[in-house]
């Protein structure tokens, strides 16, 4: 129809811009992933610039697939994302229910609860790893040292001394180590993102029907039953939204990992790609495509879950 031409013409710049915005990086990544492309190579200088003559086929994919560190990165990505989701949802529900009651100073408490969300991720990581989790100078170090001093004091106490003399010296945990740095990341991101879950779940709690609660009270439902059969089903939808939004954000965590350990042992997928980009652009692009596939799998899985709760 003729009268649709002008609206379409007017939409064109935006659509073209959007297409370029998405298609150019994606097709460049795809192209790089099929060629040999390294930034520094003294033996093969022709590989240092992108060219179709350096075609490698699925070689980059095969190379990445066979790297243990790639699988470690995927494993770490999933561990970090799933742990954060699990913790933020549980803490979010608990805190939202707790502050949904009326108590003096509720307004201030709510504002304070939301505030971690306004801290920049890098600042958050620096504060946690240096001021809280540092085994010597941080709160952790101070607390462990204090506990050790207390136990040492109690060893000399008259009655309970013999009991405390059996206690070992407490050792502070180094959260920059290979095995533990992922836990530090999980802790700090959980701290930062719990307010997000609280915010969304709290608004949902406020829309809960009070007459349903009263009906349940008359039906003999205990507090736990009311939570289990009324509140939790009511929260299913917002929980699905929290999980989906957070999964998208946490699959691309970077700053925290950089600051905690510089990828020492707990690289996730984005960090692994970031390291490859320093030299092997081809392999980095192939990993990037793997990351896109992983993100799509997660997204489809989450959309299904969300769709199911929305249908009900």
């Amino acid at each position, binding site marked *: 129809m003729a009268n649709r031409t002008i609206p379409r013409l007017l939409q064109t710049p935006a659509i073209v811009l959007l297409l370029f915005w998405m298609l150019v990086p994606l097709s460049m990544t795809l192209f790089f992933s099929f060629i040999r492309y390294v930034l520094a190579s003294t033996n093969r200088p022709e590989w240092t610039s992108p060219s179709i003559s350096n075609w490698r086929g699925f070689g980059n994919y095969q190379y990445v697939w066979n790297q243990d560190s790639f699988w470690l990165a995927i494993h770490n990505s999933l561990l970090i994302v799933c742990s954060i989701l699990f913790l933020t949802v549980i803490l979010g529900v608990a805190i939202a229910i707790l502050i949904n009651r009326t108590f003096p100073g509720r307004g201030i408490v709510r504002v304070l609860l939301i505030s971690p969300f306004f801290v920049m991720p890098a600042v958050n990581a620096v504060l946690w790893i240096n001021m809280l989790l540092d085994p010597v100078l941080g709160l952790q170090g101070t607390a462990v040292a204090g506990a050790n001093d207390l136990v040492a004091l109690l060893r000399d106490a008259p009655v309970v001394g013999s009991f405390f003399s059996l206690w070992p010296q407490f050792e502070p945990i180094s959260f920059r180590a290979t095995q533990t740095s992922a836990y530090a990341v999980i802790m700090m991101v959980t701290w930062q993102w719990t307010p997000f879950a609280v915010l969304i779940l709290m608004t949902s709690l406020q829309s809960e029907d009070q*007459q349903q609660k009263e009906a349940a009270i008359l*039906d003999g*439902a205990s507090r736990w039953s009311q939570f289990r*059969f009324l509140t939790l*089903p009511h929260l299913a939808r917002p929980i699905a939204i929290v999980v989906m939004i957070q999964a998208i954000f946490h699959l691309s965590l970077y700053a925290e990992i950089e600051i905690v350990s510089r990828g020492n042992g707990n690289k996730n997928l984005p960090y692994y790609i970031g390291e490859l980009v320093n030299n092997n652009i081809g392999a980095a692009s192939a990993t990037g495509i793997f990351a896109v596939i992983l993100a799509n799998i997660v997204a489809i899985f989450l959309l299904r879950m969300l769709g199911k709760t929305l249908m009900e």
Partner: protein
Amino acid sequence: MGRIVLQKVSKKFGEIEIIPPLDLTIEDGEFAVFVGPSGCGKSTLLRLIAGLEDNTSGDIIIDGNTVTQVPPSKRGLAMVFQSYALYPHMTVRKNIGFPLRMEKMDQAEIDVKVNTAATSLNLTDYLDRKPGQLSGGQRQRVAIGRAIVREPLAFLFDEPLSNLDAALRVGMRMEILELHNKLKTTMIYVTHDQVEAMTMADKIVVLQAGVIEQVGSPLELYRAPRNLFVAGFIGSPKMNLITGPLAAKHGATTIGIRPEHIDVVASGGTWEGTVSVSEHLGSDTFLHVKVAGFEQVLTVRSIGDIAVKHGDKVSLSPRLGELHKFGADGLRIG
């Protein structure tokens, strides 16, 4: 069984007294209706009986036991809410069975009871649907089903028909009455609609500002309203209340005459007036007549359709035997 006695029950929210101390007895098997304008405390009174609110003073006695300190679920009462308050994530079957499940009843036994209740309420076809897929009337039936399965000592209805359209309301009214005839359980029904009260109640409790204005059968209230408030509230259209010299002539401060007790006569009636509005319902005609010397427009109800229109002169003849007289304090005289 379900005899409910309130003794000096009162309720304060903070400093504001919603219900001053009141006494009330509802006999076993009775259909009692609390009626009054919005904000009169009728719902609060029901919630006090249910235990959803704590009374500030006095005692509530159900079936001979003082239940003032007893939690709501242990009072043996079932309540039907205005918003139905169905559990949206559960099927109709689960909704009706919920109170039994909370009693930790055997699943097989629950199924039997739910099916019995569903059959009696014509809900068998909808058992596996969710409340969101039901119409208003069906939802209300589910809410009633959830109350029935508990086999309570008394049912409490909190404006259960207010969210239904007029035609459905009449139908549900009949269904609730049939239920009462079948179960013979005490029912307390809260409404602001005096027609519902008149048609359903064994005993009407008229409330205003937390105070019981009158308790009695529908016809007692109709024939002998205790005061001006009840006179104005019971009956539709409202009773004509006339003050001034005419009232003084009958030895009262206010006289009341119901619209159906004023006859339109060809000529020679007591009052002559001009019709301002005539409402033709077919079965009845409501006339609003301006009579010289009266401050208020008189409402007249004539049986059948009579051919009068705006501006017509009519002659009215009140049946003096049906006159209600009220003193300066608003109370009925004689």
